[in-house]
C-alpha cells in the first residue's frame, strides 16, 4: 500500500509492502527426532562417534563430519548466561552431560537467577508436540551423576514443519520514482527521464542512462499508448498472485520511450486473445475509474488494443 503524498521534508513517503511467504521446512533426522521426542518429555542430543562430545539440540553431522549417535540427555542443567527480554527471560543452559548450551525460556518464579543456578525442564502436557518443552525453572534438587543414554524410541521423527515469513518493508522512492508516482497519482501521467547522450526516454524514470551511464537531464512525459511487444495468457495460479487467472501479461513499449513496461492487456473476452492480439499492435492505457489513485502502476487498470488507429 502506498503511503500517499506527503510534503514533509524530513519524512519522505515510503512504499510499504509485506511479503507473506509460506514454507514447509524439512527438519532432517536430528532436529526431527528432537522435536518428536519432546512429546515423550525427553530431550535429545547427538554424540560424536570420534570425540564423544554431546550437542543439544542434536546435529545431523558431528564434529568429524560423520552422522552422530542420537542420545537422551538429562532434563536438568546449569544456567551459563541469561537475559531478560520483552518475551521473557531467556537463558543458555548447559544440560547435565552436554557439551553445548541450549537456549530456552526460564519460567516460574526466578528471582535471584544467576549464572550457575540449577534448572529443570517444565513440560506442558497440553501443548502441541513441538512446544511440549515449556521452559526451565529454578530447582534445588541435588545434582546427580549425569546419565546420557542412547535414544531408543518408537516415535517417528517430525519430518516437516509448516512455517511462515511475514516480511514488512518500507521502500524509499528516491527522487525519480517519487516524481514518477506522484505524477501517476495526481495527473494520470507517465513520466520518464531523458538521456542527454543517446536521447532515449527511460521509464521507469531514473537518474542514469543504463547504456551511456551518464546522468539523465530532464523529466519528460510519455504517452499512455504504446506497442505490444509480447504477451501471454496466464492460467497458472500461484501463492502471492495479485490477479486471478486467466489474465494477460504483456510487455509494452510506451510511445516516446525506449524501454519496456510490464502490465496487463484486457478489455475483451479472453477467449478471443489469439484473434484480437498480435505482436506490434497499438495499445492504450485504461485508467482506473474514480479517485482511488494510489500512485502505483495499478492506477492503470490494463491496456486495451486500439488496432491501427494511431
Amino acid at each position, binding site marked *: 500500500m502506498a503511503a500517499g503524498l506527503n510534503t514533509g521534508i524530513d519524512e519522505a513517503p515510503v512504499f510499504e509492502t509485506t511479503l507473506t*511467504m509460506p514454507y514447509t521446512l524439512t527438519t*532432517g533426522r536430528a532436529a526431527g527426532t528432537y522435536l518428536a521426542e519432546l512429546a515423550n518429555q525427553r530431550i535429545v542430543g547427538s554424540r560424536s562417534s570420534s570425540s564423544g562430545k554431546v550437542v543439544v539440540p542434536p546435529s545431523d553431522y558431528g564434529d568429524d563430519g560423520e552422522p552422530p549417535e542420537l542420545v537422551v540427555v538429562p532434563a536438568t542443567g546449569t544456567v551459563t548466561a541469561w537475559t531478560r527480554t520483552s518475551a521473557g527471560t531467556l537463558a543458555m543452559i548447559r544440560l547435565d552431560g552436554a557439551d553445548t548450551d541450549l537456549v530456552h525460556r526460564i519460567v516460574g518464579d526466578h528471582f535471584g537467577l544467576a549464572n550457575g543456578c540449577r534448572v529443570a525442564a517444565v513440560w506442558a502436557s497440553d501443548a502441541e508436540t513441538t512446544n511440549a518443552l515449556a521452559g526451565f525453572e529454578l530447582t534445588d534438587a541435588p545434582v546427580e551423576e549425569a546419565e546420557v543414554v542412547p535414544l531408543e524410541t518408537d516415535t517417528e521423527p517430525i519430518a516437516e514443519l509448516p*512455517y511462515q515469513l511475514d516480511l514488512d518493508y518500507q521502500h524509499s522512492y528516491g527522487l525519480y520514482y517519487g516524481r514518477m508516482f506522484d505524477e501517476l497519482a495526481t495527473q494520470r501521467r507517465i513520466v520518464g527521464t531523458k538521456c542527454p547522450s543517446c536521447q532515449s526516454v527511460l521509464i521507469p524514470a531514473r537518474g542514469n542512462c543504463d547504456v551511456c551511464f551518464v546522468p539523465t537531464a530532464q523529466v519528460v512525459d510519455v504517452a499512455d499508448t504504446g506497442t505490444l*511487444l*509480447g504477451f501471454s495468457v496466464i492460467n497458472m495460479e500461484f*501463492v502471492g498472485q495479485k490477479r486471478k487467472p486467466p489474465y494477460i501479461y504483456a510487455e509494452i513499449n510506451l510511445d516516446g520511450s525506449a524501454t519496456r513496461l*510490464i502490465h496487463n492487456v484486457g478489455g475483451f473476452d479472453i477467449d478471443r486473445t489469439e484473434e484480437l492480439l498480435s505482436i506490434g499492435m497499438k495499445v492504450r492505457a485504461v485508467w482506473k475509474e474514480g479517485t482511488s489513485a494510489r500512485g502505483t502502476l495499478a492506477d492503470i487498470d490494463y491496456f486495451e488494443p486500439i488496432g491501427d488507429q494511431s
Partner: protein
Amino acid sequence: MRNVAIVGAGQTHHARRRTDVTQAGLAREAAMRALEDADLTIDDIDSIVVCTGPVLFAAVNQPEKWLADALGARLKPVVRVTSGGGTGLAGALSGLNQVAGGAAERVLVVAYDKLSEGALQYSISTLYDPFWGREFAVGIMGFSAAYWRARMEPLGHTEEAAAMVSVKNRRNAIRNPYAHFKKEVTVEDVLESRPLCAPIKLLDVPPISDGACAVVLASEGAAKSSPNPAWIRGMAYYCEAENATSRSMLQSEPLTLAAQKAYKQASITNPRRQADVVEVQEPYTCFELSYYEGLGLCREGGAAELLASGATEMDGEIPVNPSGGCMGANPIGAAALIRLAEVAQQVRERCGDYQIPGAKVGIAQAGGGWANLRGVAVVSSNRS
C-alpha cells in the same frame, strides 16, 4: 593465469521433495559424491564456494553458515555466491578464479536449492523492482512466454519445435540415474498439455526439484592426484541492464558476449564442429531453441531446423542435454553447476548410459535473473 581442472563431480538423487534431508544434508550428499569421484577427502580441499538461488526459496538466510558442519567447511574459507538460476556457474567462476589466481589448490563448489520448501513463483516474482513490475510478474514464466511469442514468427521457434525439445530431453533423462522426472512424452502430449502461461504449457516446463551438485576444481599440480581431469578452457558470465533501452527480445546479448569470451579463451571458432557435447539450462523448452542460436550452434532463426535434423539428439552431430537437462531435474540453484558437471563428466567419460562416445570438448550454458544473466563454459579432456 594457471590451468584449472574439474577433477570430481557429484549430484544428489533429485526429487520433488527430499524429506529425508535438510538443506545441509542435501548439499552434503552432492559434496561427498564429488570428493569420492575425485579420490579426495575434505582434508584435501582448501576453500569452499556455496551457491544457492534466492534465500526466499527456502527461508534460510546465509545458509552457508548452516552448511559448514555438513560440508566439513570448519576453519576453511567459505563464500556464498548467489545469482539466481545461473548461480552454479557464477560460483564455479568464483572457484575457478581462486585456483587460477593461486589462492587455493583445490576448491569445492557446492550448489543446491530445496524448492519444495517455499512458494517458488512468488519468490521469483520478488526479483522484480517492488515499485515497477513486481505486482504484474508471474515468476519468470510470464515474461518468458511473452518473449517466446515475440520470437515465434521472426525466428520460427514454433510450439512444435519447443515440444520436440521436451520430447528429446525427457527421453534422455530416462538414462540419467540422478534425474527426477523420467517419463517419455510425445510432441502431441506436449502440445495438448495444460497451458500455464500460453504458449508455455505444462510439458514445456521442467519439474520443480530438491537437489544439489558439487564439483572439485584443482590446479594443474593438484589435479595429478585425481583421475582424468576435465580442463576448464573458458568460462564467462555476463549481465544485462534491467529495463535497458536496447534489450532485444530475439537474442540474449549477455549470452552472445559470454559465448564469445569463453570461445575465445578456448580457441573455439566453430562450436558446432569443435564441440562434442553441449548442456544448456532450459527453464522452459523455448529457451533451448534460443540458446542454440546464442551459442552459435546454428544461424539466427535456424534452431528449429537444427533440432528437426536430429543433430542435437543423443546420437546426433552435436548432442544437447544428453543428461535430460532441466527436464530431468530442476533444482534451480544447482541447475547451472549440473550443466557444467555434466559436460565435465562427459569429457571424463563418466556418464555411463548416456555417455557420448569419445567426447573431448563440451560446452555448458547457464543463466539466471529474468534472463539477464548468462554464462558459458568450455571444458576439454585436453589441457590445451
